[in-house]
């Protein structure tokens, strides 16, 4: 294996996954290059979220292999995969809310890999832990500032708007200094302005060298930012290529839309 040399950070090989007899994924292969934004699209039930769950280790695949940064991560638990530098967000927001955990608490939990919490450590080395934490708090403030949530660190997540909760999720994932971000429908439920804002954030993250794999239904967003697109349908890979290539693929249009609009042009590529 020599992914690094080819500039490939994530390689998916022939992944299959069945749920109670239904093929959620059926022999899917693709790879993600370092620094690019790759989008994973497809109709509902195409297996996109399952793909992300397999990649981040929440669901073990039945067949196939996954390599991340030259490591075989097939079937590894999510915490190991995360420790290699993969962060993710969820389609349905999953912030930590128990015991009045604040936005800052959520961000600091995101930094668990740096903090390496431990029972004995927290009892006997409380001073050192405190100093480390102070540093991370500064970093958290910086990140909150970056996503546009400065001043919200002491707020309970439930008190934030839906759009802002999405931003907290992103900020929390950034706390782990990810090499790669896996984002599951980050723009769903956001209004147009928030989508624009989010787009800006993602592009500036790309500038910072963070690779991204995005599942998204908002095609305008996908077409604007994706370098590369993979199309899934019924668990199979239908097409792969640049936004333009994918747009032009009649199979994709047929499968993805079922119907075409009046001009014979898919809504997929309205621009």
């Amino acid at each position: 294996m020599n992914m690094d040399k080819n500039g490939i950070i994530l390689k998916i090989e022939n992944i299959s996954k069945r749920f109670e007899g239904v093929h959620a994924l059926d022999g899917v292969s693709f790879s993600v290059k370092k620094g690019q934004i790759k989008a994973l699209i497809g109709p509902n039930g195409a297996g996109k979220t399952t793909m992300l769950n397999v990649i981040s280790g929440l669901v073990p695949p039945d067949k196939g292999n996954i390599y991340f940064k030259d490591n075989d991560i097939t079937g590894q638990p999510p915490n190991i995969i995360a420790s290699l530098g993969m962060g993710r967000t969820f389609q349905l927001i999953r912030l930590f809310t128990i015991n009045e955990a604040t936005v800052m608490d959520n961000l600091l939990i995101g930094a668990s890999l740096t903090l390496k919490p431990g029972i004995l450590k927290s009892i006997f080395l409380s001073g050192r832990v405190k100093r480390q934490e102070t540093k991370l708090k500064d970093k958290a403030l910086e990140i909150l500032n970056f996503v546009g949530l400065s001043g919200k660190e002491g707020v309970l997540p439930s008190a934030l708007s839906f759009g802002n909760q999405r931003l907290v999720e992103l900020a929390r994932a950034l706390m782990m200094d990810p090499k790669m971000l896996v984002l599951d429908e980050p723009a769903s439920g956001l209004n147009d302005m928030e989508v624009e804002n989010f787009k800006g954030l993602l592009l500036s993250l790309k500038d910072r060298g963070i690779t991204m794999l995005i599942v998204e239904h908002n095609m305008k967003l996908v077409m604007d930012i994706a370098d590369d697109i993979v199309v899934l349908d019924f668990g199979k890979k239908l097409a792969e290529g640049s936004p333009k290539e994918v747009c032009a693929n009649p199979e994709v249009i047929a499968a993805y839309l079922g119907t075409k609009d009046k001009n014979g042009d898919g809504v997929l590529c309205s621009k």
Partner: protein
Amino acid sequence: MNIMERLKKAWWILPAVILGIIPLIFKEKSAYVSGILIFAGIYIILAVGLDLLMGYAGQISVGHASFFAIGAYSSAILTVKYGISPLLAMFFGMFLSGLIAWIIGRPVLALKEYYLAMATLAFNEIVITLIIEIEWLTGGASGLKNIPSFSLFGFTMKNNLHYYYFVWFVVFLVVAMTIAIVKSPMGRTLIAIHSDEVAARTFGINSTKYKTGIFVLVNVFASVAGSLYAHYMGFIAPDDFGVSTSVNMLVMLFLGGFGTIYGPAIGALFLKILPELTYFFQDYELLINGVILIIVLVFMPKGMYGIFVAMKRKIGFSRE
């Protein structure tokens, strides 16, 4: 660091002073009062540990008394049958409890919610059955008697006052350790696991390891409580370590305030003092205790500690 912060850090001074002078206030009745407070202290250790496990890590246990029993019986058996010193026996109990917790923790904590509740309940029953059946070692259902008083470096605790100060010293130690954990990144990690274990794992949190670790720690606490209990009582029997004791601890947790550490301590104190006040109701005692608990649960969802916090806020000591 300003004065307010310094004061907040010294949370323990006021209760320590109060507890320190209680025996002086009650004078001739001090043996009685300290006797109750010794039991209360022992249960605070148990309740605070259970809160760390349930209120923070989110792992339900309806069998917390099982490790209380293991600690008590380790101490009792080693001192009575093998003549080992109480302190060593206590350490052995801690080690044994930790080991058992570590072995069963991994598989059992993979269970969720009610299934976990049932498994812990079953474990409690198994421990009790074993204690009853391994009669040659444990004294069976009749119990073990003549357990020697606790002694530390040659000093034997002869009366209630000695025990009182010693038990409460341990209580403060346990509470301080628990607070240190809760306030540290470890506490947040537990909250994350409680809140959403799957999400927590995607941030590199090895939830199995942390759950098992906390399970081991709180059961070591429970074991210490058991040792203190055995040496103070001088006599132990399986009757006091059954599921009903575990259920009592749950009640302390929710009465005092779930997930607040101080709350369960208040709950334990309250529940150990309440019977002293409702004795007079005789047959009505059970009903009254049940009704009080219902009222607290319905009207004070955050427990007794919730009232305390609300009152503090009203006077102006806002949090943070």
